[in-house]
């Protein structure tokens, strides 16, 4: 029964993704088109004939609504079109070039945040209301409060410029160039996950079944590992969706500061240069990732939480 319930829930959630995607594409499309100026309004003023030809080539002469439906048709075939700004590049190629970089940093930051965050949170919960707990939570609050665009320059200044241990930026897939960006990106997530884990762990540790486990003489680390960990991690799991969104947003800044050729840097450049197709491509691409991750997190949460029932109606 429960399995079926989860399957049904999954199917209905999958269907629900479609309107979300449509709204995402629609808002992004019309928003960027409302912007004054177009991709060909550069520093060089083009002769009107050439301009007209360019407009025809990219279908910019058509009514907006027709362009919109043309774009929808295009996107169904996963074709994001050519980039206006990077000549001879399609948006698909740019995404294929930038995304692996962003994914590597983001993925590593996420892993680091998950393991370190939960570990710190558990330690704080086990030492609740001691000096250890207070200092961990104070530092965690700092981690949440200090913006990553402040952390990044400070880290560069201290670690790269003054100490000279690591390069200040750039990208060549080497570990030493990944360390600073990954740490910067992971920091707020570590702090947030630590706070979440601590809060839920404290609550779980006060429940009756934990008292039972202790009463039968289980050592504390086994109590945590076998009984308390899974329920205590539930809020962390549901935070993973928003955390991904935050990491992606953060990567926009991180990639700029550390001069990393990821997708986020393309987005900012594209938005400033009215590169319609590139901006749309990145927004839709990242939008799909965030939506899908939220979906996976939701399913995972349902699967992990025995208290959720889907077949109440039956």
């Amino acid at each position, binding site marked *: 029964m429960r399995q079926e319930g989860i399957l049904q829930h999954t199917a209905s959630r999958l269907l629900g993704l479609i309107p979300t995607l449509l709204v995402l594409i629609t808002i992004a499309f019309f928003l960027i088109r409302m912007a004054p100026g177009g991709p060909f309004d550069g520093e060089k003023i083009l002769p009107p004939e050439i301009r007209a030809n360019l407009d025809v080539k990219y279908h910019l002469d058509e009514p907006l609504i027709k362009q919109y439906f043309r774009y929808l048709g295009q996107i169904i075939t996963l074709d994001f079109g050519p980039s206006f700004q990077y000549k001879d590049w399609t948006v698909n190629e740019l995404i294929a070039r930038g995304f692996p970089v962003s994914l590597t940093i983001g993925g590593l930051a996420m892993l680091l945040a998950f393991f370190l965050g939960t570990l710190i949170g558990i330690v704080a919960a086990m030492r609740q209301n001691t000096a250890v707990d207070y200092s961990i939570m104070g530092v965690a609050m700092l981690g949440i409060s200090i913006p990553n*665009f*402040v952390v990044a320059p400070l880290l560069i200044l201290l670690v790269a410029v003054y100490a000279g241990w690591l390069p200040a930026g750039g990208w060549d897939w080497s570990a030493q160039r990944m360390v600073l960006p990954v740490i910067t990106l992971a920091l707020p997530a570590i702090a947030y996950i630590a706070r979440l884990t601590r809060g839920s762990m404290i*609550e779980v540790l006060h429940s009756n079944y934990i008292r039972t486990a202790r009463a039968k003489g289980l050592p504390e680390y086994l109590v945590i590992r076998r009984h308390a960990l899974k329920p205590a991690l539930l809020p962390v799991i549901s935070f993973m969706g928003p955390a991904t969104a935050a990491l992606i947003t953060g990567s926009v*800044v991180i990639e700029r*500061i550390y001069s990393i050729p990821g997708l986020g840097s393309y987005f900012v450049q594209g*938005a400033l240069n009215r590169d319609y197709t590139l901006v749309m491509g990145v927004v839709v691409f*990242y939008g799909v990732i965030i939506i899908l991750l*939220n979906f996976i997190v939701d399913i995972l949460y349902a699967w992990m939480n025995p208290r959720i029932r889907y077949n109440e109606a039956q």
Partner: protein
Amino acid sequence: MNNSVDIQAEDAFAAAMIEDDIRGRSLWVDAWHRLLKNRAAVISGIVMATMLLLVIVGPVVSPWEGDFTDWDNTSSPPSLETGHWFGTDSVGRDILVRTLEGGRISLLVGLVATLVSLAIGVSYGAVAGYYGGFTDRIMMRMVDIIYALPFMFFVILLMVVFGRHIVLIFVAIGAVNWLDMARIVRGQTLALKNTEFVEAARACGVDHNAIIRRHIIPNLLGVVMVYVTLTIPQIILVESFLSFLGLGVQEPMSSWGALVNDGAQDMESAPWTLIFPAAFLTVTLYCFNYIGDGMRDALDPKDRL
């Protein structure tokens, strides 16, 4: 917290109250006393009050103007002799005054954009919650859809599209930040409208408007206030983020984000241009978060995060 001490303090307080005269303590008074016991929140409150005062009065009493370029002291380190306590940037502008003026913008954006999101979120959530049924389902489905969108990208798009005017920053950030508020208010309203005291009011023949005004809204305020304090730092952060990317406020106006951006460019030769604005920004966010946390503990003791 040390429980026994807490209870004693509580008792002493109660005893004092009884000796004075017997009078009911409202939820607000209770919450206020709980907040005052939270040392982190109280210290944060004092720091924020000082910060607010500095930001408002500082630029007025300072001998320097924010856009005055002191050509004798460009990129000079902090010193008392030159009169530039926080040093100057590469064109000789006083960092202290610029930091304080930037703080005005940052705090103003934080407050105004929060009010925008408050207005949208509370009315949307209250309507959805109070009317319920089909209206509620459609309205909340819309929130769900918007919730899944990459919000920061939309703020960036909005800034690019509508230009970088300060009023638009308020609206753009506020307009995408109301979703949480709407959800929270709706949930509260749903719970409240089925409570006995609302039912009693209805039985007495009080009309809908009066019920919302006199019974629902006052009971929402606690949660809303907690959320507002937690929203302000978020919005200050978003604004700084935009300004850092060069999409926020424009010169000669400045905000902490823009100053951090400027400072990050000169940090190797003049680290003070980065450190002071960054410190002000971080301290502000830190304090707001602590105040928000303290308010949550005070007003909603169930939530123990």
